[in-house]
């Protein structure tokens, strides 16, 4: 349904894919709470690709049971996934923090608003799969 490229460091266009997703979900006339959850998750994952990776893709699939959001990137991988899920933990630099990101809440928010979340990561890349049930 959505399969869009997200570029490393591209804050200027950051959020465009998530915005497109939100518009699409609104056109499908889904429940506003589901739309909000999916939009927040997609936006956090999109920003994560921009901040932390060499670039990647954001994909969204909709089935009768759920919205599946997949964020794939080309590395360098998450060193410690458990730490990355700790509220407040961040590896983001000062430049990113000045833009208002790097609070160490990104993946925590993704987990909070999802019904299921799975993270696979190695130096070749990270794949985050998130499901939001209807």
């Amino acid at each position, binding site marked *: 349904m959505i399969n869009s490229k997200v570029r490393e460091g591209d804050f200027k266009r950051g*959020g465009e894919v998530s915005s497109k997703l939100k518009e699409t979900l609104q056109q499908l006339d889904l429940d506003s709470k589901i739309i*909000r959850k999916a*939009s*927040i998750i997609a936006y956090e994952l999109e920003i994560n690709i921009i901040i932390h990776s060499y670039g990647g893709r954001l994909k969204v699939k909709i089935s009768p049971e759920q919205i599946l959001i997949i964020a794939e990137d080309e590395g360098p991988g998450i060193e410690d996934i458990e730490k990355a899920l700790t509220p407040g933990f961040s590896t983001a630099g000062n430049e990113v923090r000045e833009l208002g990101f790097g609070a160490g809440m990104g993946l925590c928010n993704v987990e909070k*608003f999802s019904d299921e979340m799975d993270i696979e990561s190695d130096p070749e890349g990270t794949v985050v799969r998130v499901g939001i049930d209807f």
Partner: protein
Amino acid sequence: MLIDEIKEILAAENLYQPEFSYEDIDITTACGADLMSDVLAFSQEKTLLLTGLVNPQVVRTAEMTDIDLIVFVRGKQPPDDTIKLAKEKEIMLLKCNYSLFHSCGLLYQNGIKPENIIGTG
């Protein structure tokens, strides 16, 4: 609380006012933050965002969380691309001269409450 009351309490000036009828929007909760992931932790509708951050990602964050109104504090003027995106997404923008703490305090005192996001209240 209606947006006109919020404007009066904060002595705020309009930066962008959407064409739709905003007079009836009832704001019951607010969040004050300069870190956007803190804002994204909020999940209720009809929340007002007070922030000292002025880049376009503030508008993107408001868009994702269904925030209708952003108030820029400390007299900060957002750049044109922030205002342009707010117009595109029809998110109202105000500016006030109070600090973030002072702005939040004034609204709290007048009945706007925080959203309980981590089970503390």
